[in-house]
């Protein structure tokens, strides 16, 4: 890894100021960024650690009943602290990587990176979450803009994520056993306004909503409701772990499993 200057500000405003420097990069838990830097795929001049920004750590519930999670909150903390308030989200957090990764990796880091096989994007999109940054609030539907691409501007930090709590939700992940990323993962959430289905790991455009399944499940929230639907293989990822057809098939299978598990 190329060397860099390490800074660890204590407030969001100091972090934003530090990120204004040339070639500065924010560091969440580093579970993706550090391996990427070791491979010299990233070589920032300054690394701005967000782990010291206390106001960005923690889980609470706001007046609207939404679960608010600070951007620098680890997966392990989300798993533990949403277990009763939002079990579907807690279950997803508990499947990310492995225990040591969950002790370092953060929700803000995952959402800012928007890896096409990461788990959290499906929870944020599947819950219709709000991504809060140091400058604005972004609806999840507007936030995810393709593989490793988000609505974030240069130097913008995910400070908080707000999740409306559904009546029922579940995440089913078909694990790629070597990396423990999702070969395909589906997050299903049932709200009074309808059902949302978000798919990660499958598409070349990153996380997406499967609208046909949403319509069918909003009428009947059962695995049977999706069994006659099909997902086009066009645009699905094809690699040595699975063909586009295989991933398209997995989308349907994992959606059915998630609906059953959410009951």
């Amino acid at each position, binding site marked *: 890894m190329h060397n860099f200057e390490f800074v660890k500000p204590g407030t969001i405003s100091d972090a934003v100021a530090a990120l204004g420097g040339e070639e500065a990069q924010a560091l969440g838990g580093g*579970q993706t960024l*550090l391996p990427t830097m070791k491979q010299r795929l990233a070589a920032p001049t300054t690394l701005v650690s967000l782990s010291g920004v206390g106001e960005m750590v923690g889980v609470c519930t706001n007046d609207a009943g939404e679960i608010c999670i600070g951007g620098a909150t680890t997966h392990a903390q989300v798993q533990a602290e949403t277990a009763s308030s939002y079990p579907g989200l807690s279950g997803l957090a508990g499947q990310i990587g*492995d225990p*040591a990764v969950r002790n*370092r990796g953060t929700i803000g880091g995952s959402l800012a990176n928007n890896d096409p096989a990461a788990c959290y994007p499906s929870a944020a999109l599947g819950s219709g979450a709000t991504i809060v940054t140091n400058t604005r609030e972004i609806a999840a539907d507007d936030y995810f803009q393709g593989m490793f691409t988000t609505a974030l501007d240069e130097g913008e930090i995910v400070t908080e994520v707000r999740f409306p709590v559904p009546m029922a939700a579940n995440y089913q992940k078909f694990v790629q056993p070597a990396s423990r990323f999702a070969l395909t993962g589906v997050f299903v959430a049932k709200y009074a306004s309808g059902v949302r289905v978000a798919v990660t790991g499958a598409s070349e455009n990153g996380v997406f909503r499967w609208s046909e399944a949403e319509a069918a499940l909003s009428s009947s929230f059962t695995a049977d409701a999706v069994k006659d639907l099909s997902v086009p293989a066009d645009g699905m990822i094809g690699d040595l772990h699975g063909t586009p057809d295989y991933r398209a098939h997995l989308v349907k299978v994992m959606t059915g499993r998630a609906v059953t598990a959410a009951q």
Partner: protein
Amino acid sequence: MTSVTMTVNGKSVSGDVEGRTLLVQFLRDDLKLTGTHVGCDTSQCGACQVHVDGKAVKACTMLAAEADGADVKTIEGMANADGSLSVIQQAFQDHHGLQCGFCTPGMVMTAAALLKENPKPTEAEVRHYLEGNICRCTGYHNIVKAILAASGQEVTQIAAE
């Protein structure tokens, strides 16, 4: 260079590190605590696991500068005060939970983290918790047995097949 101070196995230590210095490099190269191993260097294998403020982390995927002010525990800090093996270490020996031993420091640190969170885990919970620790010798059976034994549970039913 950045100056860091942390507690490692109960002792206060300081050093000057580059921004890019990994925690595992600081432990092994500066403090000469070479019990913590580097297996893959890509955060897959878990041989480098240590505890930072009581939580298991991969020391190859954490910057030394991030551990400034932290309480770090490595495999060198696991034995009892009189030098005898801890319950978990002894269980690994008793149940043949290691062969070449390369993954063992990480396995022991992970086992300790698990038993702190969940003092009586099921076999399935042990296996799930070991997802981030790779062993190429044992096939995991005896590691799982050792951890269950260390938790005080009966292990005769979990014979290696």
